[in-house]
């Protein structure tokens, strides 16, 4: 077992009394009697496919099936709350907290698909604590990997399984480079952050943000779901991209303002060739004009790439990106509802 990037070079510690107690939780339920909030349905499938830019014909039309990677989506509690965890899972968490392993990072997940889900299917699910690792020392700190497996059923028949692995660890031992926080070292997942889509450990590497001392503040903001714009304290000019001085007045001093999140597509491209393993062409990349007057290159979501237009209103979101080596946040811009039906603007 591997814990993803944070666990590279993990070392097993010696005899561990706590481990024996943790090990006893293996096989105990993590959640029971879960029931999907909605039956599998065409609307959620369509939203998913649009957000992912997935145009596969199998997910459309009268004989549509749900994309297999939606497996976990059917089990999610949504904004109105999640299904309660089992007492056993809470006990395991408390035991780890008591041992100082108060920090948690999601490391990876895996899915297995046994049969397709189709609109109308009503799903139920149970989760089990599948395994607890011996104590490991990772870049983030020392702790235990806990793997839960959720079985998703339709009419009692197993349709798929979703394994989710976390590292519960003693915080404060991790290292952040001088260039700022390592994007994959995110010890405190925020409420409301969507669960990451499954990314196998051999998933192709995605281009990482290029972070140095001059722009670390921007990426630290993104990790907190805040898009920070530099502001020259000499002349008040807002600037993007981040630089250690003002192109208008030359002053080195600056502070930041947080973007409100509104913007429009100033220009855009649709990528076709050459193919990159981590991307799925065709996909759109836009130059977004933020309402504050500065610009940012970002992906556009919520519409197929051929529906993006110059002038289209968009709104800031944050998307967790994962590959085989880690996960990090990126700003993306979702087309405002109805924007795709705006009169076609050539260009």
């Amino acid at each position: 077992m591997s814990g993803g990037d944070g666990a590279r070079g993990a070392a097993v510690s010696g005899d561990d009394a706590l481990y024996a107690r943790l090990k006893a939780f293996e096989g105990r339920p993590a959640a029971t009697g879960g029931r999907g909030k909605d039956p599998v349905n065409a609307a959620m499938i369509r939203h998913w496919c649009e957000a992912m830019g997935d145009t596969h014909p199998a997910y459309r039309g009268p004989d549509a099936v749900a994309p297999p990677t939606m497996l976990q989506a059917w089990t999610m509690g949504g904004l109105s709350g999640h299904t309660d965890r089992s007492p056993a899972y809470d006990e395991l968490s408390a035991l780890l907290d008591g041992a100082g392993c108060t920090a948690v990072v999601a490391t990876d997940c895996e899915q297995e698909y046994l049969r397709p889900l189709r609109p109308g299917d009503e799903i139920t699910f149970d989760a089990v604590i599948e395994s607890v690792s011996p104590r490991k020392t990772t870049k983030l700190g020392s702790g235990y990997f806990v793997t839960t497996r959720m079985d998703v059923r339709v009419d009692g028949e197993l349709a798929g399984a979703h394994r989710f692995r976390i590292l519960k660890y003693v915080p404060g031992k991790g290292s952040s480079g001088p260039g700022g926080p390592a994007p994959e070292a995110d010890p405190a997942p925020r409420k409301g952050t969507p669960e990451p889509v499954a990314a196998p450990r051999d998933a192709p590497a995605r281009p990482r943000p290029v972070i140095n001392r001059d722009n670390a503040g921007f990426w630290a903001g993104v990790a907190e779901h805040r898009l920070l714009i530099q502001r020259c304290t000499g002349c008040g000019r807002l600037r993007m991209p981040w630089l250690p001085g003002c192109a208008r007045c030359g002053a080195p001093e600056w502070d930041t303002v947080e973007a409100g999140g509104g913007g429009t597509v100033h220009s855009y491209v649709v990528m076709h060739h050459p193919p990159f393993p981590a991307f799925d062409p065709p996909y759109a990349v836009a130059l977004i004009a933020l309402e504050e007057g500065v610009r940012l290159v970002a992906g556009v979501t919520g519409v197929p790439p051929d529906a993006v237009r110059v002038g289209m209103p968009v709104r800031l979101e944050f998307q967790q990106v994962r590959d085989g080596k880690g996960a990090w946040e990126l700003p993306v811009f979702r087309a405002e509802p109805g924007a795709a039906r705006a009169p076609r603007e050539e260009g």
Partner: protein
Amino acid sequence: MSVRRADTLGGRAAVVGIGATEFSKDSGRSELTLAAEAVRAALDDAGLAPSDVDGLVTFTMDTSPEIAVAQATGIGELSFFSRVHYGGGAACATVQQAALAVATGIAEVVVCYRAFNERSGRRFGSGVQHREPSAEGTALGWNLPPGLLTPASWVAMAARRYLHTYGLTPEAFGHVAVTGRRYAATNPAAYFHGRPITLADHAASRPIVEPLRLLDCCQETDGGQALVVTTAERARDLRRPPALITAAAQGAGRAQEQMTSYYRDEFYPSDLAGLPEMGVVARQLWRTSGYGPADIDVAVLYDHFTPFVLMQLEEFGFCAPGEAAAFVADGALPLNTHGGQLGEAYLHGMNGIAEAVRQVRGSAVNQVPDVAHALVTAGTGVPTSGLILGRDGG
């Protein structure tokens, strides 16, 4: 050279020799071998010997150091060696560096060269997925996480805005592609010799990064090109008619980036629809030479991607903003008469300088009658450079 005043370099140096390897997709030899072959060929063309050379200039991107080229070609001690940055933007600036050196007596004979296996070796078009967090790497790094990874994509962002600004469709770019391939068809040295295209071929070519299609993107090439520069006085005693360096300029704009200058609307109203760095070059070339668009008999404008040819014509004032596609279609200005990088070869702009020299000599395969002044430019979207070459006494 100054952004404010005419300079005093004009007419003091000349290109006296040009030489190239064959242009291929797989040279079968090292980049240093290609560089050495091109340098020897250029010296032969000039009627000079390696022992005459005391200066070498190339691109920062070139993999063959001046000292290696000197060793491999029998060039002796060097008093001047220099490299210019920013990819293809360096091309005309290598000649400017050489002219500065010979005009001031820093060197007597300087060879400019560029050689690479860009098709069979490292292909620029394959894109960038990782950069070190240097200032330069971080600047490009803003584009990588969302997947804006290739030169075509960086240009396409500007091209889309150009079309939007002037209410055009992507077919506007087709005239540049057709023109380049028309001249290449009658140039035996061109990779696309004998293979002209039509506007319909352009429109039907597959999308690379919309709005750019395959035929908006130049080819990739293995090869080498060299140019010999010396003083105007010495040039008059050599084998070929000199191509006088009438004006030479570099240019970078405000809020300049490399290929992704997306953040300078505050400084330039043309925004993404213009190339202000080429405007900096244009103003200097016109001011120093005293010429204007009407004085140019042939133009060799850098054409790695078609949209930037249109923007260059507008920056130089050959036509009004937004009208360059119609201007090219009209054909009044002989443009990229070797076939350009779209048709002849992608030699990072250096083969375009050689074509301007041939036009001034009167020896081009697609010769324009009675050329007194040729304009040639270097890489676009990056800090760049340009030259006006003139006939002696022209």
